[in-house]
């Protein structure tokens, strides 16, 4: 599904503080297909909440959050879930289900939301896994993997399946240095395909090498989201 309008649009989106913990200030953001916005935020928890807000997980007191032109608040459960299946999310923690092996955790969104043949999904996951430094796909449960391998696996899962929006939380402290280049390549490839990217970083040095390709530089504070000039 292609969209000619903004891929992600927050219009005076005022999160409900009681239900989210996010400061009740209006947020405005507009990301077009292919855009990359870097959001600097020192508090990883706040970044996670903002990513939740972008994928319609946070109830709003006012305003709207639209993804691919659709307002999250107007959608039913099935539509919400289907639309969230188009988002590739790199989360810092709490995303691994120890009931399944890591390989299944990686492929779970694709196997759930698409009818792509399983072998095709496995091949795509293997290719991405090798790009991020795995010899194949890790099959042990996530609890047995090191933080570095979990960060690699999280990258594979986020970029798998041509997502339309990438919400990339900062995993730079766990991601090995050799995986940074494939990460930037994957971001560029996704943007070339028309995906919008929202990249959360705790400090400027993390995205410094990619600064020329970044469209918007924002800072997420308790007081709201602010546009920054320069790096």
């Amino acid at each position, binding site marked *: 599904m292609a969209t000619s309008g903004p891929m992600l649009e927050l219009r005076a989106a005022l999160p409900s503080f009681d239900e989210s913990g996010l400061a009740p200030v209006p947020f405005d953001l507009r990301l077009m297909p292919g855009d990359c916005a870097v959001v600097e935020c020192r508090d990883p928890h706040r970044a996670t909440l903002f990513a939740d807000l972008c*994928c319609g*997980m946070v109830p709003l007191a006012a305003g709207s959050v639209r993804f691919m032109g659709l307002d999250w608040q107007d959608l039913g*459960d099935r539509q919400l879930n*289907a639309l969230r299946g188009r988002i590739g999310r790199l989360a810092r923690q709490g*995303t691994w*289900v120890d*009931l399944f092996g890591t390989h299944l955790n990686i492929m779970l969104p694709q196997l*759930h939301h698409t009818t792509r043949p*399983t072998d095709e999904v496995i091949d795509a996951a293997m290719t991405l896994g090798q790009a991020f430094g795995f010899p194949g796909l890790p099959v042990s449960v996530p609890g047995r993997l090191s933080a570095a391998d979990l960060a690699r696996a999280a990258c594979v899962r986020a970029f798998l399946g041509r997502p339309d929006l990438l919400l990339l939380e900062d995993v730079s402290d766990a991601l090995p240095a050799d995986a940074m280049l494939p990460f930037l390549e994957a971001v560029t490839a996704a943007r070339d395909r028309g995906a919008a990217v929202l990249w959360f970083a705790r400090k400027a040095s993390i995205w410094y090498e990619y600064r020329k390709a970044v469209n918007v530089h924002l800072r997420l504070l308790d007081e709201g989201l602010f546009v920054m000039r320069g790096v």
Partner: protein
Amino acid sequence: MTDGAATQPGQDAPDGAPDGTPCGPIRRRVLAWRARARPPLAWIGRITRHQVRFALVLIGAGWGVLRESLRPNSWRRTVRYEFRLSLRQVVAGGFLSTVFTATLAGLTVVSQAAYWLGFAGMAQMTGSILVSLLVREIAPVLVGIILLGRSGMLSLTEIGLLTLGGQVRAMQAQGIDPFLVLVMPRTFAFTVGGFTLGIIFAVISLLMGFIVTHATGVMNMSVWTFFSDVVTAMSAWDFLVIPLKFILVGFFVGLGSCMTGLLVSQDDTVATLMPRGFARGIVLVMIVNILFSLEF
């Protein structure tokens, strides 16, 4: 035009009824009584709602499971995978416990019933008594307890820890509905598992009872005659009610365990979760059995 002391709509007058009319001592007494009665009534309401909350959740979730299962779109690869995994866990995991318990039940209930009925000269009633006592009443309770202890508590802990650890929320963020991926397939796995283990229990307990009574010389008929007597003693209702009991016990044990796990609060720990889940499971097993005993 009214002056500033006029009452607003819906607001009581300073000394009287909401419409501003002056009220007498009876009216005042009623109002005072109402004010006194409100807190205890609210407390009773809170307690009642708290007590029936899980029952209402269970009814809603049960309806949700049935409705979702009828949509072909619900049985996606991930849901089918979880169903297969859970079914294997429920049936294979509970098989040995069922065989062991059924053997014990056969050695005690069947052999004793056959012995004492033969002693009383009522050996022809062996079949009907075994059906009504063992297969219809005892087997669903024991199978329910095996399901609960062997697999229900596992599901409860797994889903409870996923909820407490934030993984359920993370699944929702990926557009994966935990009700669809965890609750529905597990509930159906328990349903199928309940029926399977129930039939295994009934067959093995009867067979073990027969072997013991035959070996001790209490019963001289062949195994085929014995099973034929049991089947002949079953009424048409028994053929419906017995499998239905196994199925419903499995369904509610599975659903109750999954929903208890999914509805944990942040204050919960495994220490608070497991006793609650076990108590609810036992109550559900009993309710299914008692309802059928009353009805039929």
